[in-house]
């Protein structure tokens, strides 16, 4: 299996951590609540194998995803369990609704929140790599995490890189995730960039 050396892995997590910190700050500002962050995990797996590692236990989750293409390509996803995304969006919008699914407008608002959080996350990463990402418009998806995160993996045995951070908001008892998914050869481009980053400090 494709594995980074310890220092590369460390560097990659630190770089993502900086993005995740900005993302959490953006989310915290919108919900006026502290977002507790887990220590991120980084794994290299085959897609079939990765499915078992995805959060959500097969329950319906809502995800907002954006694809970022640049020094490496990644699918970035902010996701919450469905009932919690109802709560979070209605709290932010200040509406008292009893509908059991998100309305079109609420989906759109959730897309905007995802957009703000994911852009905030990727901006410092672009800065660190002194490079640019092209990003797609945020897209709303709902289903199992397998469906929400599903990448274009033509061959299921292709290696993917999966980075996960758990976000917790205690007041609303909300548990969400930020996920980043890359496939080969994007991973190789990523590691080349990480090596450049490391060499700047260890020259």
């Amino acid at each position, binding site marked *: 299996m494709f594995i980074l050396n310890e220092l590369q892995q460390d560097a990659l997590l630190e770089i993502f951590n900086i993005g995740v910190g900005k993302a959490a700050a953006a989310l915290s500002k919108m919900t006026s609540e502290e977002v507790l962050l887990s220590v991120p995990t980084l794994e290299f797996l085959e897609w079939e194998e990765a499915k078992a590692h995805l959060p959500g236990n097969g329950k319906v989750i809502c995800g907002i995803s954006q694809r970022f293409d640049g020094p490496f390509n990644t699918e970035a996803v902010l996701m919450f369990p469905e009932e919690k995304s109802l709560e979070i969006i209605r709290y932010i919008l200040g509406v008292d609704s*009893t*509908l059991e699914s998100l309305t079109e*407008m609420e989906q759109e608002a959730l897309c*905007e929140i995802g957009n703000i959080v994911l852009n905030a996350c990727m901006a410092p990463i672009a800065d660190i790599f002194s490079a*640019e990402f092209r990003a797609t418009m945020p897209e709303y998806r709902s289903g199992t995490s397998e469906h929400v995160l599903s990448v274009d993996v033509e061959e299921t045995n292709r290696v993917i890189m999966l980075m996960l951070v758990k976000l917790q908001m205690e007041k609303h008892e909300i548990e969400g995730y930020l996920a980043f998914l890359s496939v080969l050869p994007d991973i190789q481009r990523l590691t080349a960039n990480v090596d450049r980053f490391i060499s700047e400090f260890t020259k």
Partner: protein
Amino acid sequence: MMSKDSISDESFETSKLHLAELVVREAQIGLLVLDQNELIVLFNDWLAKAANLDEKEALGKELTQLFPELKESRLQSAVTTSLQMGFPALLSQSLNRAPLPLFAGEEERKMGIRIEQQIQVIPLGSGDGPRFSLIQISNVSVAVKRENMLLEQAKELKRNLIIDGLTGVYSRRYWEEQTLIELRKARRACLPVAMIMLDVDLFKNYNDAYGHQEGDLCLALVAKAAASALKRPRDILARYGGEEFVALLPETDLEGAKVVSKRVLQSVETLQIPHKQSNVAAYVTVSMGVSCGYPSEGESQEIILSEADQALYIAKAMGRNQVIICKNKGFFTVDDIPLSNPLAERKHR
């Protein structure tokens, strides 16, 4: 229709450009393009009309020159991000309402009713070439209206589940839901709760004497008077069925429950609704049973309610128009006079 075969490549390219220009001009959405210096280089007709501006007035200006209210706005920062980072942004109607002063017509402009907007900020160009930012504005007024209707309907539906249609106080279903929640809270925090069971005295006689329509009216008046005697927001009065009502008073001890139930008694009495078929008084009166205490683990809603119900039964047996309290399985009048073994005299309901 344009066909590539019919014209030379060069004129095809020219006409394609011309076509693109026409499309941008005539498109029924707002299109605005800013260059790297955040100056407007494109402002289409739809936008010009909605903003009541001439294209010429807009070109070469900054967004905030044209719309000063956009200073330090989310839209402005989204534009800057799109130009600097190349990231797109979505501004939903729900989170931003109508950031731009755009109006469907003169009438709306005068009344200040803006077009509801969904805005997308899209970076154009990449790499070393020039970078532009496209702002695309869609009118979502119809969708907003449709959705508000949907939400209103859902609210109405929910309201019908919460409120008793005849009397306007809470429904039994809602009361039961809330009681479960309050009992759980009380158990966790070791707080007392009080429950009141209320019955309109000799209501069958009232119906017989005045008719069902008057009877319904009487129930509504009594319910309203009783509800007005509960002062705290978490106190809940509901119609239990027929002429029976229940009240839940969270964080209320025996003394509090006495005060409230006396107030209910008085507030119904104050109505002075004539009741010629009553042997209690010349007007409509009520009887109440109160159960009060610290709900223990496993002490269900049913048990507390049945205590209140037994107290109510005693209140009726003792001549109605009064309150009887059940505490620690014993029964008392509001003046703390214990009642000797009232359950022995109780006949099964």
